[in-house]
């Protein structure tokens, strides 16, 4: 028996496809945002509020992943922008191959902003690079403020945490400063915005964040 070195990542194939997607996004000046959270944190609602505020001429598109049903795609399609559902048929995450296949139906050069709503899950999506430029994790105040510590693999790869449902803060024991501290423990450079998709509080800050990232991308970042 002989031991031979085998130095390769397990998800080599996914990483290869993701690198191809990333290259395409860079070339076309597309900002791709991968949105991750637990089920029920408000990903679809945040996207609805985000889409509603864009000028109709804005070149925005959405891919939305779900294990079953196309309910989210139906909700998102009301805003007039192209939306495609990826039904994973049991898989708990999106992978780069699914994104590549879904994008093949569109002209990728015609998309400036691409939002990918991942399957509601804080564990599995973290391992799968989708070629995104920004990874955003949603955490709602009806969850525990220790989520960043329980799911460090997800939070330490994130660029931004959106703390959602802050209108409910008076009614829940969520300590927002502790949540911020926990997120920074896992990723010191992480940015945090507080929003309520119900009242609209903080959504300007979220939109500014998107526009700043988009401008940086157009400038060649």
């Amino acid at each position, binding site marked *: 028996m002989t031991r031979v070195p085998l130095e*390769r990542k397990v998800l080599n194939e996914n990483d290869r496809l993701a690198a191809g997607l990333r290259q395409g996004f860079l070339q076309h000046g597309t900002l791709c945002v991968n949105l991750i959270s637990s089920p029920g944190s408000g990903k679809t609602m945040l996207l609805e509020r985000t889409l509603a505020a864009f000028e109709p001429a804005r070149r925005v598109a959405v891919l939305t992943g779900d294990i079953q049903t196309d309910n989210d795609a139906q909700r998102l399609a009301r805003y007039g922008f192209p939306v495609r559902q990826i039904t994973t048929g049991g*898989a708990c995450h999106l992978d780069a191959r*699914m994104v590549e*296949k879904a994008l093949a139906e569109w002209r990728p050069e015609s998309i400036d902003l691409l939002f990918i709503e991942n399957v509601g899950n804080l*564990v599995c999506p973290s391992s799968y690079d989708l070629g995104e430029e920004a990874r955003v994790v949603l955490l709602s105040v009806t969850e525990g403020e220790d989520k960043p510590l329980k799911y460090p693999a997800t939070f330490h790869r994130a660029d931004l945490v959106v703390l959602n449902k802050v209108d409910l803060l008076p009614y829940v024991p969520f300590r927002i400063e502790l949540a911020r501290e*926990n997120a920074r*423990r896992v990723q010191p450079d992480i940015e945090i915005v507080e929003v309520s998709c119900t009242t609209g509080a903080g959504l300007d800050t979220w939109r500014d964040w998107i526009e700043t990232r988009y401008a940086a991308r157009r400038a060649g970042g």
Partner: protein
Amino acid sequence: MIEETQPFMHEMSIAASMLEAVQAESARRGAHVLAVGLKVGELSGVDAESLRFCFDALVQDTDLAPLALEIEFRAWRNRCRQCARDFAVESYRTECPQCGSAETEVAGGKELEFSYMEIEDP
């Protein structure tokens, strides 16, 4: 709508990716693979026991069986941006044990990669 058929839970998808990689290596070398070594980091998002369960379940229906999976767990380590100290993170304590700075970053524990294969001698 795009339909995908994939096994449930991502450890199953990962185990399937592993078997594909081992199958390719086995064919490339023209040798039977007896064991494969894998590094699984604490921050990889993968549960080592679930992965082993899925791997064993999948491998038995392939011509790779019996194939041993040897998992090396890699703990979460951070490095201090102020004093460059490299330290193990225990109980989520990410502040530097040397200078107390909160400015530390991940230095290890993200691994999900192969390290070696044991192949049958010709």
